[in-house]
Every structure is written in structure tokens, then in C-alpha cells.
């Protein structure tokens, strides 16, 4: 069972507008971002199945991974 990888906000513009990807388990969030052409440093927050994780989290089967773009401040 693969995992769902979702991009929020301006991140989806970096990859041409698509915000949801079905990905294989076993890679870190960081690797997955690089594979999509996103510089990992532009990501502010990673949430896996509703809990906060780091970019070094290894994606498991059935996960829903959500990555949030860095925001624009006050």
C-alpha cells in the first residue's frame, strides 16, 4: 500500500500546480521532496497522519504526509 504525499500553499506552484502524489514507502520526507524538485529548506512543517514529524521521517505504507510551505510572516 503506497502513501499519500500532499503539498500545501505555494509549494504546489513550485511543481506546477499538482498538490497530491502517491508515493512509495521507504524514503524520507526529505528525499521525497528532492525527487519532486522541492528544496527541503523551503518546507516549514511536516505532518504525518496528523502528527508533527521531521523531514527525516521515513515514509511508511498507508501514511498521509502533508508538507507545509514556509509562510510570509506578519
Amino acid at each position, binding site marked *: 500500500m503506497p502513501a499519500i504525499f500532499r503539498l500545501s500553499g505555494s509549494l504546489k506552484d513550485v511543481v506546477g500546480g499538482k498538490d497530491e502524489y502517491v508515493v512509495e514507502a521507504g524514503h524520507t520526507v526529505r528525499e521525497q521532496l528532492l525527487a519532486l524538485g522541492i528544496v527541503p529548506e523551503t518546507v516549514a512543517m511536516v505532518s504525518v497522519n496528523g502528527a508533527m514529524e521531521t523531514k527525516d521521517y521515513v515514509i511508511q505504507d498507508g501514511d498521509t504526509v502533508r508538507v507545509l510551505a*514556509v509562510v510570509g510572516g506578519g
Partner: protein
Amino acid sequence: MNGYGGHILRVNLTTGQVKKEPTPADLARDYLGGRGFGIYFLLKEVPKGADPLGPENKLIISSGPLSGLLVAGGGKCDWTCKAPLTGGYASASMGGHFTAELKYAGLDSIILEGISPKPVYLFIDDDKIELRDASEYWGKGSMTVEKMMKDKFGEEFQCAVIGPAGENMVSFAHINHDFGRQAGRGGVGAVMGSKKVKAIVVRGTKSVPVADLEAYRKAGMALYKACKDAEGLKEWTRYGTTIVTSWCNEVGALPTRNFSAGSFEGAQGIYGQTMREKIVVTDKGCFGCPCPCGKYSKTKKYNSYVEGPEYETIGLLGSNVGIDDIEAVAQANLLCDEMGIDTISAGNVIAWAMECYEKGIFTKQDTGGIELKFGNADAVFKMIEMITKKEGLGALLADGVKKASQEIGKGTEKFAIHVKGMEQSAYQTHNATAMLLAYMTCDVGAHHNRAWAITYDIQVGREKVVPEKVARVIWLQHFRPMFDVLGACRLQWVELGIDRDLYVPLLEAITGIHRTWEDIEKVGERIWNLTRLYWARENADFGRAWDMPAPRFYEDPPKTGVTKGQYTKLEDVNKLLDMYYEQRGWDSNGLPKPETLQKLGIPQELVA
């Protein structure tokens, strides 16, 4: 007029006369509202060389065509005047519910003129408009007064209030509203104080007309739906702007100890996550906002309530003064709000003074016995009070970091972190060239909200000095400030990634005039050039030198943290400016060429 309150209110404080004029249709067509109205009236009506704190300066308060309507985030109010902090253009954007109330009272702008002989407040209840005696409020804190007024007039009234710092004309005094929203930057509160206006209280019960009601409801609902369906809405709303704190620390963008570094060893203590767990009581939204960034907090340590702190305040009154305790940051935030000073400028001037103290340039004799070291929260609280009262060292700091450092000399100008006299907001720019350029060329001084380009730096390579970065900054400078013109918030687009084309049918249904984003950005470019002309008109030596960043960013690299040793070479700083001026159609001294002004359709009456 569809989408507008329909009137401009002129308040002559010298004579006490109030007068309503119809909002000119061509003004609305060409400048839309908000910041657009502000710069138009500033250039046209405030005479060249006016004293920012004198009777000739005007405070121009404007809503926009999206304010107060079924628009996600339609709650932004613009405050324009000649800035006491910089001697140039000031335009501060305030959230909350004030701008909507102006529209319901049938007003698009309020223009405060002259100086009142005694403290007053402006009372507006629909068509009943009066200047009233403010002696019972004068001298009191801004939120204390807001509470008194809410108790007296009722919750339907919205209040914008200055604190004692505004009364004392501290050059970075702000205007407070809705217990924690501010028109923060440039000293707009000092201008209101110079006019002896303690507060503006407004209630409106009128309906705002729109051109096509059904199309408007449909487009408004579509914008709300897009926000509610947005990926990340929940996380964004949980943390608001504080979501960025941990990221800034990771990439070395968190201002630390007067911008001497970009990562802070105590950052964990001021992270958004720490704050949410420890002190947040409720989410607090501006008018019409489906994704409220406002976090309302209660501190245990100080037993106090405060809206925030939001990211800028955390950066400047946290890491930049060496404080690693979110409760202490919140308390400093509260004191600034109540006293009426901008947290961004306050965090900068105090950090500069701390660096002076640690370097032995200031001694205990200068500080009045205060141990003014980084990390000393009590010293920060005390300095906020001293700045407000212009007492001791506070009197020097109340003029802003540029003037203070010029007065002290001894090389302290090199670590006075400002552009054009406005202290820099909370992004470290040793090695983020697009963001550095954004600060250098921002139309009010070193402020982030016109062009927030730091993620673009990271995406394309931080140290790169390429035309694409310059083009990106220019596009952002046209596009983002247009939200301040339209009277709405940009964060729905910035943070939730809402398709900006959703605004096009909405604006058309409201005003009855079709405009593409290209049309809207053209207005943005016209306004950008007008603000540049204003700076040049008010400052005989205005030009390239005014666009230079703090020397720290090109000659004093961080000694610690993830950006250790990194900086932008002076030749690259100049290259950025060369490319920027060229792309803008400005000359090598940074002044708009005549053909550029002609192309933008800038009227002669504003240039003369």
C-alpha cells in the same frame, strides 16, 4: 458608488470642523483605495518639507473596495502620512474590524488635518460625527482606553487608540485596535499624537452597495470555499505566523542578538509549537478571515493577556534581544501594545543598545543602572517604559536606531539595522540576496511585507545575484501591496496558496469594473513609483545611498549558527541595485526616468 462607503471625511483639528466629501469616482478607478488613496492625498495635499509632527502633515486612513464585504480577509486598513521615523513615506496596514466599520459608516477615508488645541477623540456614529474632549483618556494605555470606550459605547463600536508613546511622539509609536492589532510602522501613532487625537471610535449601520449582488455572493462564497478546502488550513490556523519561527532558525534567518547571527541557541523556547502549548488561549481573527493568524495568549508568569506574540515580535523581542522564554516575549509585546510602540522597531533599538552596552560604549551610567545585556527580560521591559516616557537612554532610542547611532557615533552606525531609518523586520539577510534587496528597496524602509522573497532565495540559491531574483522582488512589490490597496489581507494567497484569480470576478462583481491582475499590478507599479517620488521630493539628497542595507550584512558575517561566515559582498549589493534600477526604468541614482513616469500615466499634478 459600488464597493465603496462613498465619502471622504475631512477632520480639521485646528478649527474643529468636520466635513464629508463624496469619494471621487476617478480616484477610485485609478487608485482603487487603501494605500492608493493614501499616496494620492499625501502627494497632493501635504506640502513639500512639511514637519511630520507639525500641522501640515496629514494622517490618511483608508479602507478599500474589498473591505467589510464577503471577502476572506477583507479587514485591512491603511494609515498613510509623512513618517516621523524616516522623513519619507509611511504606510502602515492594520487588521481587525476597524476598516469594515468605516465602510458601514459610509466612509472610504478619514483625513486628519491640523493640530487640535487640546486632546480629543473622533466619534463617528454613522452621520453623527464629533470631536470630543479626551482629557479622561489622555495619558492612559491604549488597551485600557479601548476597554473604557467599549464599556461606554458598546461592542458595536470599533476603536483605534494611541498609547502614551503616541502622545509623547516617540518616532515609532503605533496605533492599537481590537486589543492587539496595530497600524505599526513608521510612527503613524506619533502623528496622531502630534494632532492630539487620542482615539477614533466608529460605528456604522449602513449597507455597502455592490454592482452585481448574485455574482458577488457566488464569487465571495467560492473564495471562502477555497480557503476552507486548502491543504494546510488546520496547521496554519493552529500556529499563525509563528509557524515560521522554527524554520527561520533552521535556515539561519532568525534575527539573533541584533542581527549578528541567524540561529539562536534558545530558539526552542520561542517556537510556535512551544507558544501554542504554553500560552495560547484562543484564535483571534480579523474581519472576515477564515484562517485567523491571531493567537490570543495568557501568561502564567506575568498573569497577563495579550494578542500574540506573532512572528515578527518573537524575532525582534525574542531572539534579537537574546530572550528564550515565550512568556517574557509575550509580556514585552503587551507592554509595547499598551504603551503604543511598534514591536519591530522596539526590538531593534533595544538590541542595538544592548550591543552598545556589551561593547562598553554604554555603561551603567548611561542606562540608569540597568544591566542592559542580551537575554535580560527585565531590562527590555524597563527600556520599553523609558522609550515611552523618553526618559534617560530612552529619549535617545525614541528617535529610532538611525538617529540614535548617528548621535553616538563610534562605529555604532555599522550595527544599526535599518534602511532609510526604518528598523529591519525579522528576517536575517546576510545571505539571502533577494530578501536583502526587498528590504533595501521597500517603500517605507526595511519592512518585509511588500516583498517576502526569502523562500525564493532558498529555492534558486541564496547567494546568487541574478536578474530573476530582481524581477521576482519587483513583481512581489507590485502584487502584494495591492492587497493593502484593495483593503484585504494577503495571507490567504501567501499562506494557503489560494488561486489569486478568484479575486478577479469578486472585485468585478463588487465594483462593476472588470480588471485582470495585470491591470491591478499596473496600479501597483504606479503607486510604487509615486512613493519613490515622494521620498525624493522630501529629501534633497535622496538616491542610491538611501537604498543601502545595514553594513553588518556586507561586512560583518555571523560568528555562529548555520549561516556562520556568510555575507553578501558590497559589490553584489551594488549589482543588485544596478539590476533593480534598470528593470524598473530608474536612473543609476534610483530615480524614475521621465519616460517611465509617462508610461505609467502618472499625472503632472502629483509630480510637480
